[in-house]
């Protein structure tokens, strides 16, 4: 009897400290706005040079995702519920909507799902392997199970603690992309006027 109580206590305390995917999703969803800087390195097989880029991103729970690459050239990607707009200097913006290209739109919506650790959206397309690395650290390995994702990616690995800190993408062709996020801020809790302009563009 005593052992049983002890065991239950142990289980209870375990469940208090262990991080689960649901916890993460809940935590992320409680951040109305997240701002971060990123640096990305892509190693493309057969090319000696690594492709480095960096920039900032803003994720708003209500408005979507705005990804602004600043170096080595400006490129912005806006992702909302209804459309995806990619803008490059000197070119007309490319707009993809759920209607005119559901395939690509769905694919890019996964990006938002990644940042929100959106359980259900991810499970439709990936097998999830979530592990608690101790001290609040966690790791989520996504293995694509549907075509065409499974022909593009071997795995997508997310790592983080309070925030998402790293995304590692392993392509089927052996290419690797590492994205590091830092300087995450959740204040102010609403979009600034300047940020709002990006989302409404």
């Amino acid at each position, binding site marked *: 009897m005593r052992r049983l109580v002890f065991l239950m206590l142990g289980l209870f305390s375990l469940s208090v400290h262990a991080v689960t995917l649901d916890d993460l999703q809940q935590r992320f969803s409680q951040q109305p706005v997240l701002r971060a800087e990123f640096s990305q390195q892509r190693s493309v097989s*057969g090319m000696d040079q690594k*492709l480095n880029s960096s920039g900032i991103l803003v994720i708003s729970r209500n408005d979507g995702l705005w990804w602004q*690459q600043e170096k080595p050239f400006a490129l912005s990607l806006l992702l909302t519920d209804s459309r995806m707009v990619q803008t490059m200097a*000197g*070119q007309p913006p490319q707009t993809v909507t759920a209607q005119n290209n559901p*395939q690509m739109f769905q694919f890019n919506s996964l*990006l938002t799902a990644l940042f929100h650790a959106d359980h259900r959206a991810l499970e439709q397309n990936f097998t999830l392997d979530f592990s608690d690395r101790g001290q609040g650290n966690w790791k989520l390995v996504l293995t694509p199970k549907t075509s065409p994702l499974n022909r593009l990616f071997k795995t997508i690995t997310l790592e983080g603690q309070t925030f998402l800190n790293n995304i590692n993408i392993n392509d*089927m*062709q052996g*290419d690797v992309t590492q994205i590091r996020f830092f300087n995450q801020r959740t204040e102010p809790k609403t979009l600034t006027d300047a940020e709002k302009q990006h989302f409404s563009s």
Partner: protein
Amino acid sequence: MPRSSIFLPEHHRRLALGWLLICLALVAALFWLLPRSQINSSVLALLPKQQLAGVPEDVSDAFSKRLDRQLMWLVKPPEGAQRDNALNAWLQKLQKLPALQQVEGPMDDASQRQWGLFFFNHRNALMDAATRARLSAGAAAQSQWILGQVYSAFAGVSGKELTGDPLLLVRASQMAQQQNGAGMTLDNGWLVAKDTQGKSWYLLHAELRASSYDITSSKQIVGQLDALKTQFEAQWPGAKVLERGTVFYSNYASQQAEHDISTLGVASVVGVFLLILLVFRSVIPMLLSLLSISIGALAGAVMTLLVFGEIHVMTLVLSTSIVGISADYTLYFLTDRHVHGGQSTPLESLKKLFPALSMAMLTTVAAYLMLLIAPFPGMQQLAVFAAAGLSAACITVMCWYPYLAKRLPIGPTPGLGLILCWLHAWRSTKKLRIGLPLAVLILATIGGIRLHVDDDIGQLQALPGDLLKQERQIAALTGQSNEQKWLVVYGDTAEQTLQRLEALEPRLAQAKKEGAVAGYRLLGLPSMQRQQADLALLTQRAPQVAAELKQAGLNVSVANVSPQWVTPQAWQHSVISQGWRLLWLSLPDGRSAALVPVNGVSNGAAMQSLAQAMPGVGWVDRKSEFSGLFEQYRVMLSWLLMLAAGVICAIYLWRFRWPHGLICCIPTLLSLAMGVAALGLSGHSLNLFSLLALILVLGIGINYTLFFTNPRGTPTTSMFAVFMAVVTTQLTFGMLVFSSTQAISSFGIVLSSGILTAFVLSPLTLPGKKRGSNK
């Protein structure tokens, strides 16, 4: 040979024998024709063939035939682990059906690889519009775009891809293809549409081996598919199948027609036979009527098949109506034999009745032949069927019945008292002479006021609610409605057609921008002219792009710009034309055409003028076009009818002088008015078919007037025969009122009310009272 000589026994016997030989020849012809003909049940086949937006007829024919053979399904499988099993089960079931060919479900990995390979091997020829625009703008636009793709973490550009295709042409054209995906996504090779609840519907496609007009095979295949569907939905709870295809509609139409023929036809025949049995109290008249009707039907079928090579189900339904008219000839003759059989020989009877019989036949046949004026194959078939059938039935009576009716029992004119009473009332009661026509006039006026005109061809086909519901669901899921609206681009050669298609492209984009259409589907097959221009552009830009990329730190080789021509033949045989082949047609003589389906048309006139402004482009909107045509012919027939009525009235006035001539016009005019008014009173609308029915009202109804105005005095026997004729006609045309097809039903309403009015009012034309004592 003097005319009367046919009534000499030996001459007449020879005639009878000759007719027997002709009938045997007709039977032989029918057996020879039947396996070589088909029963057509397409509503559109009833419509005129010419005038299709100037598109060459063989092109539009080939396209319609092809489109009519297509079948598609959207399947919602049960959710979860059973999804793939259910989908594959459905696919396999379809593949096992012998009536289907080219059953297409998911694109397997091998075809997906072939697809990519074909694009790769022909990337210099299959350039997409966005790449063309970037390359035309300058090398910088393209190199910037490439950089964007390469740096993107999620675009997945690999080193291998960059080496093989440094300009990322394959990627660009595949992205453009996806833009064309019309609201559908790819999931494990399946094309998928999502409904508003987020449930996935998987697309399958197949083609019928036989034409969907083929009545027996379409009945069989629809039966099989229905069974499969029921079985599938029972086996996988939560699963649902939606279907689309002309075969479902044509099968429904032919089922309905079959139902009409069997119930209405049987009811007509049984009614007519019962009446004969009742009146003559002998089976001989019944058997003889059956004989003349059968020979009439035989001759009608053979002539129709000979002239048209097919028979339309609508013709068959309408043809049941000639049962009543062809029975009339038998009844004329038999009534006379029944009453006067004791006093005169059969040939004497025939000689006496010959003018009446031939006159009645000629006026009715003439009325039916007038239907040939309308360019509608269905009506033309009916005209040929009825003209041949009625003539044959009448000739049978003339040639054979003097011998066959020998054993007919003899008796007085049935119902003689009633007939005399009725005629007496007309002559002596002023109230009846004035009151009844006046009452009819009032009724006709009320009906006329309530009448409205509707030229919509949708009336022709009563669509079943279930199919319509599925159709709406499919349209909502795929964004592609079954509107039957498209542009046809054609040319003398494949190259000319493709160039015209490319010239059309910017105009269409403009029309879409202006909101005239919601969308369109353009073939992804470039003309040789365009391929050459694209290659020249590539040759110019490739080194510049490579240099710029190198400057940006991306070390790639200069793209290979060798020609990789794609011919229409190569395209057609490749996997990339899957789902597009239907839209391309090459005739053996090299003439080619492409179909551009258009949906969400809000401004048909704009599309019409767009097509007219370009050579080799036709705007096909079958429904509006035919509704317009219906109106045009309705108006034309109205004038024709008025002219005919006017001529008849003039003849009456000339023959009978004022005022009796004018009185004689009344039944004719009121029968026409009542025929139309009945539509208004019963809540139907006036269309072309009502006017075609009016022609028959005029042709058949005039007989009654003719008999009553016969100055030689009409014997009561003839009058009785007229009465019988009206009753049998009502039994047959009246039956059409109950047809489930609205067009046929309103045809029946006009005919039966018009003819009834003509009959009821015909005693009005009797000569004055003094002649009545002659009877």
